[in-house]
């Protein structure tokens, strides 16, 4: 991706997040107002691709803003804990309300992370 499309990517991310905010709010309010509890909660370890503190702070804040997902904490991987995480990988611990498996929650977070990094970085995600 080129830097020329950067403002457009930033704007479309804001629009996508506003839509996501309304959808997630609707889900929590619906669960709240209907009888019974259908929450299946859990905590997932989510190794991110964020390379700066700004990126991980924004990602953690946006995850918390979306009702149903909640950041509990963050750490920097030492590479010993998990095979997939290189040393220095920034890791988030996220509490999810409506996912049955940790991988399901990680898929949701991965989608948001990809969109955020593509919007934030001037050249998008370059591996």
């Amino acid at each position, binding site marked *: 991706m080129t830097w020329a499309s950067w403002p457009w990517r930033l704007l479309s991310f804001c629009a996508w997040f506003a839509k996501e905010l309304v959808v997630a709010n609707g889900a929590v309010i619906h669960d709240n107002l209907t009888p019974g509890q259908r929450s299946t909660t859990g905590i997932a370890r989510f190794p991110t691709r964020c390379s700066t503190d700004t990126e991980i702070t924004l990602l953690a804040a946006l995850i*918390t803003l979306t009702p149903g997902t*909640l950041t509990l904490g963050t750490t920097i991987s030492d590479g010993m804990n998990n095979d997939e995480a290189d040393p220095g990988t920034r890791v988030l611990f996220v509490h999810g309300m409506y996912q049955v498996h940790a991988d399901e929650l990680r898929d949701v977070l991965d989608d948001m992370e990809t969109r955020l990094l593509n919007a934030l970085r001037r050249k998008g995600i370059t591996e």
Partner: protein
Amino acid sequence: MNALSFIGNIVIVLGALIFATAALGIVRFPDAYTRISAVGTAGGLGTVFVIVGALLLQPSLTDTVKVVLIIILQLATSSIGSIAIARSAYLTRTKLSHVRFDDLAPPE
């Protein structure tokens, strides 16, 4: 009453209703973490609705700038506050209910 203030009043009432559901959620949801999520609906959408409704009642350029600033600051502080509360809840070993998975749990 013109159309703009009519819409503004509806949006303010919607925001107040979201606040009411958040208060209900504090009573109904099972543990600290899900309750934080329930309150998050008020801190996010509820406040935004009430503020935007107030802007629609008295629209002006300077007020629009203020509203944009308020929304950005409100969303940033409410999310950081939620993270701090959730983190301290976990550090004081508050139990989760309806747990299906926990990557933070110490290995057996």
